[in-house]
């Protein structure tokens, strides 16, 4: 067969057909706007970024890049989870010893496990802080772009927070030590306080009436297949919506400010490059967004900062994993309850509420698990989900820290966050044996040992 003869292109000449990119990689130094645009269109990474972004949305002190930190942690968790998949054995007989092997015998095993474990803890924190930032800046609100659906992306975000929590919680059981066993006991006992169907829900979670092999394999499959798949899909959707909604809400805000020098009405194309979808509203003709001084090229200014955040996250986590050892307690023992038995730290505020709302009247006990474990978290998640539609503040409030018009809801949010934080701290540091209260400087009574 005769080889198909392709016309050879001079190095700098543009390809004939749109979308055809003659080089294997994108160009970091595009020679024309066309090349810059093609680089974006033909490259997956750059799908996340518009060609140009407003300077304001790159500011460290607006977003604190918490979403990027969360994504970097997710990436690290997936990457570090890979080797652990090969090393960990999800059976009640072998799980604990396989973790001991990872800790003591596998090259870099202890570090890999620590990266995975601390990464998971950090991700819960980062995702929560990201949500708090978005709430406080009203970034779920639509701004100047047409067809924005930021409130929908917020709902996706709430689900991603839940997926993150569930991922962390399901991973908690896998080492099959006392910490894992009893944290999951506490967590799943809360489920059984749901009226009418509680015990059945618990049985569904555990695959039986006690935490045993069926529970382990359920949590394992959830942890390594179902939840990562769900979170991955949500993540892709989330990022796509960020682009379609015109990037950060702060860019909308910048677009609202008058340009220092009056300029001609803005062409739609420019908006596309800036990542604001579907043209402009007629009212917006001249503004900061198209000001030369107000925008930068995504490559390299945005990508460099993204690299700083992602690599910085890697470096911090790697150093943490070297300096601190992941906990691994005694093998799980259903007959011996550690005192105190605590839920994972991000659920400790709920455990604290459960104890505080459990009322003893004589020999009669009102169990607080229903209030603290079901009603309250259900209420919070429900409110978070619908909040963008309850928020009646004007469009101008989007993309700014503490605007006047959102003061009341921001303060309410902060108070609630503070309450959760305090309860978490109390649960973590001030609860000792028998869930008695101890100040951090008070020593707990000696925990006896066998020998």
């Amino acid at each position, binding site marked *: 067969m005769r080889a198909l003869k392709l016309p050879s292109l001079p190095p700098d000449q543009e390809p004939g057909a749109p979308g055809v990119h003659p080089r294997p990689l994108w160009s970091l130094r595009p*020679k*024309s*706007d066309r090349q810059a645009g093609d680089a974006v269109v033909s490259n997956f990474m750059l799908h996340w970024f518009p060609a*140009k972004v407003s*300077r304001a949305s*790159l500011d460290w002190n607006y977003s604190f890049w918490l979403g990027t930190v969360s994504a970097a942690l997710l990436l690290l968790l997936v990457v570090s989870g890979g080797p652990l998949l090969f090393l960990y054995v999800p059976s009640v*007989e072998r799980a604990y*010893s396989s973790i*001991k*092997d990872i*800790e*003591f*015998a596998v*090259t*870099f095993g*202890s*570090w890999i496990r620590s990266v995975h474990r601390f990464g998971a803890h950090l991700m819960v924190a980062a995702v929560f802080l990201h949500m708090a930032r978005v709430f406080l800046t009203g970034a779920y609100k639509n701004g100047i772009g047409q067809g924005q659906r930021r409130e929908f992306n917020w709902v996706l975000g709430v689900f991603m927070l839940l997926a993150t929590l569930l991922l962390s919680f399901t991973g908690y059981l896998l080492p099959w*030590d*006392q910490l894992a066993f009893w944290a999951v006991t506490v967590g799943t006992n809360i489920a059984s306080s749901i009226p009418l169907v509680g015990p059945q829900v618990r049985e569904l979670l555990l695959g039986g009436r006690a935490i045993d092999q069926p529970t382990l394999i359920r949590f394992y499959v959830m942890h390594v297949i179902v939840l990562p798949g769900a979170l991955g899909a949500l993540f892709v959707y989330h990022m796509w919506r960020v682009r379609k909604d015109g990037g950060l809400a702060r860019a909308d805000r910048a677009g609202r400010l008058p340009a220092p020098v009056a300029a001609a009405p803005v062409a739609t194309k420019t908006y596309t490059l800036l990542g604001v979808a579907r043209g402009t509203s007629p009212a917006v003709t001249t503004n900061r967004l198209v000001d*030369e*001084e107000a*925008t*930068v*090229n995504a490559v*390299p*200014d945005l990508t*460099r*900062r993204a*690299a*700083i955040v992602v*690599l*910085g996250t*890697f*470096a911090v986590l*790697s*150093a943490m*994993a*070297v300096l601190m050892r992941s*906990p*691994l*307690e*005694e093998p799980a*023992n259903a*007959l*011996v*309850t*550690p*005192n105190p038995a605590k839920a994972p730290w991000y659920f400790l505020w709920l455990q604290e509420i459960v104890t505080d709302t459990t009322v003893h009247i004589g020999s009669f006990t009102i169990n607080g698990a229903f209030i603290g474990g079901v009603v309250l978290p259900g209420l919070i998640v429900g409110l978070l989900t619908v909040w963008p539609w309850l928020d009646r503040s004007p469009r101008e409030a989007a993309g700014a820290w503490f605007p006047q018009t959102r003061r009341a809801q921001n303060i309410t949010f902060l108070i609630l966050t503070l309450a959760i934080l305090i309860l978490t701290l109390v649960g973590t540091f001030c609860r000792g044996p028998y869930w008695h209260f101890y100040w951090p400087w008070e020593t707990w009574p*000696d*925990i*006896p*040992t*066998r*020998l």
Partner: protein
Amino acid sequence: MERRTNSPYPRLDRPVLAVIGLVLVLSTVLFTVGDRQHEWRYYQYAFRNTVSEKFGPDKAKTVASGLQQVWVPSLGRADRCMTCHQAVKWAGFESAEEPFRTHPKEILRSHPIEKYGCTSCHGGQGWAVDLDPAHGPVEHWEDPVLGASLGEAYGLVDNKSAMMQMNCNVCHRYDRETKGADFINLGKVLVRDKGCRACHTINSRGGTIGPDLTFVGDKAAEQYDFSRLNGQKTAFAWHVAHLKEPKGLVPDTVMPNFHLSTKEAQALATLIMSWRRSPVPAAFVPGVPHSDPRTPEEVVVEERMKTGPGAWFVSTGCFVCHSIKVFGITSPAQIGPDLSNAVEDVQARFGRTIDDFLASPTGTMSVVLSRQIILTPEQKQVAIGKLREAFAEYQKQKAAGTLKPAASH
């Protein structure tokens, strides 16, 4: 071409990115070095040098390097102790300092490392390869090495290493006396002499006034009341104190004070702590019956078959197919005819005398006597003699009317 934006960022962002890159490289170096830094690398180096000095560099080349592990599937143990304790199987280090001491040979003959591992006797964390986690006591590992330092901490009387016998007795719990386990043996003597079983059930035998002690070694430390115990808050310390003065720890107990000496209390506590529900296969436990039990009647019958007048037929193997009812021998298979009246039966079946038939058998017996049960002419004479005895007995019983119906074919 459109003018590129004058971004103010590169001036600061570039150095920041460079620093981050540096930190990344540093942290990579840190975890690589951290992962390689283990005491065992030093000990292997030191042992190789010691061997080189003592036996020459050629011998030193045979010293194993890298992580060493004994994997005992039946006990579920992966013991990496020999990563540092490399001299365990070497001769010539009998009086060296640990970790380079030769293991006493005698005990290894009956307890080979390949079958028992290290930690099933010594305690400790076999998975661990660092000094503290491997030996303990460390947090979250309740099974420290039962060595002299632990005995020192408890002020053990006489033999500081006696704690290890706790692990001996996990398998040897049904022994009346175990060779080399003096401490445990003393405890067992005390259990018998003081009559512990009057109140306590031990190994499913004993009274019910006190708690069942069969698996009391598994009782979690959290389940003891330490409020009246000074000093170490451990289950072992609790038992020692409780044995010496029961009312001191449990005021309303009915357990009497046996006025045990410290050594006796320690020996008994070691014994008590050894009573664990340990997942040891039955083959490891001396005293556990390895055969299925028989009824006394079965034992009597079997004994009679082996020692009675028909014992010759049993030891030769004839009884596999033939019963000899008059001698009380019942064949398990009962393929051939009862030999009680073989003298007349052979005559009836083959028209030959028993002597003639055994000399040149026909049919099945020709096969059996040429392949399975090969008899010398002398043995055949014995057989004929025995068969005549059986026939005599047969006729006697027939005359007396006590003959049971023969299960002949």
